[in-house]
């Protein structure tokens, strides 16, 4: 419960900080870089999530999909 509150606080800070700086649409050259994407390689992300999911107990952080097998 405490951890969830901490994350909620972090989210609130993130939003507030964001509200302070507005980066204009024409100022987003750096953000458009391939190495600034949260994930630039879909297949690599899928493969890594797949491997870690198969060998560890945790579920991938961001996947909104279901499916899988009988193994975890």
């Amino acid at each position, binding site marked *: 419960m405490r*951890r*969830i509150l901490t*994350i909620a606080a*972090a*989210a609130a800070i*993130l*939003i507030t*900080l*964001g*509200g302070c*700086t*507005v*980066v*204009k*649409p024409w*100022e*987003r050259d*750096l*953000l*458009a*870089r*391939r*190495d*600034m*994407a*949260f*994930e*630039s*390689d*879909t*297949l*690599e*992300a*899928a*493969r890594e*999530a*797949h*491997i*870690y*999911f*198969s*060998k*560890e*107990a*945790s*579920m*991938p*952080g*961001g*996947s*909104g*999909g*279901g*499916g*899988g*097998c*009988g*193994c*975890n």
Partner: protein
Amino acid sequence: MVRVKEQQRGKGMLPQAQSEFCLPRPSRRLAALTSSALALPGIAGTATADSPIERAEASAAFSYYVEDDLSRNKFLEDGVGDRERYEVYTTQLRFDLPVSERIDLGIQMLYEEMSGASPWYVAPGTAGESLQVMSGATIEDERFDATIDADFYLDKGKDTFSAGVSTENDYLSFHLGIGADRNYNDKNTTLSLSGAFSYDWIDPSDQNFVSTTPREDGEKWSIDLFGGLSQVLTRSTTGQIAINYKHSDGFLNDPYKVIQNLDSGFGLLSDERPSEKDQVSILGRIRQHIEPLNASVHFDYRFYADTYSITSHTVDLAWHQGIMNWLTISPSVRYYSQSKADFYETLLPVGIVPKERSSDFRLSPYGSLSLRIKAEVVLEELLRYDAPDWLRRVGVADGLDLIAAFSYERYLSDGNYALVSVEEDDEAPGLVKFQVFAFTLTGRF
């Protein structure tokens, strides 16, 4: 299709199929969230929450996954099973097509060939230490996976629908998902919500030796909910927070694993897990560009907890170094630590037969360290051509951009790496070490 290479000797047991290498849904959802976070007219070619991708894109990835042989001092040398562990060859394909002004279609497929032995149960050695018994047969197995997703772009964001199927010789899984992204604050803020439902059938294809429970077919269903917030923090910084919740119900045991009971008679008991499971994960990420160095830093942290009492922490740090215009070298490190499931035991003491039990190393307490290196080459406008009308309709333009990437990963796991303290009795002898070699080729047409 399962081809069995060798018969298991001694105990009259039939060989087993392996289902250790399983895939959750591909991370299209992740990609959608991450690029939508910025609502950019992305030069990276990925879809944004602002408008569909401009050009048709196709990607192919080939990877080779190989585990280290189980070390001699962790292996029960009794003539059954092999120290050689898993080896997997994977091929992935992906197509992204802008089919109309406001609609993108994505198709992703995977084909995989797996072979090797996997951990079966833990037995005591002569000095009382825990040793891993490997499954006797070396099995070859194949897996096929396909997902289709459609993005519908609106003025303030986009809606996504996805469906997929995954199949191996002993299981079949379907899933359906929906999601929505919305932009605010001059597109500096993106809110993402999504949900997916999946249904799995598992039909363990070979007899598994169990002492107390008859082997059964299993079904399970899951609901997966996701919420995320992405925020542009400065001209060179973005951040993201996401929470993921999953509820699973049904047959959750691993039918290919057993746990040894130190009773007289040396009984082997089936793996039994609760028939319901709740999982939560919270993810935070930062992307920071360092202009004078032509480099970007990525930092990810994930906290996970579930109703098996497992909690874990994952930290991922990557440095992306741009060299000249067309090359990026990215070394990265990942640290992971998990605690144990409350029903995990390597061995069961005499007379104890708990209702829930497992010796699966994936439920044991341990930590892992992974080092990776990747090199990516981006060649813009490698070729120019005049595409015919029908190709132009699906987004093919007048030039080819080619992106090629090679990567290598070395993963080590050990009880000593964990953040929690791991008792000697609890350290799973079957903890895995592996390497991954991968090559990806992407074309933007």
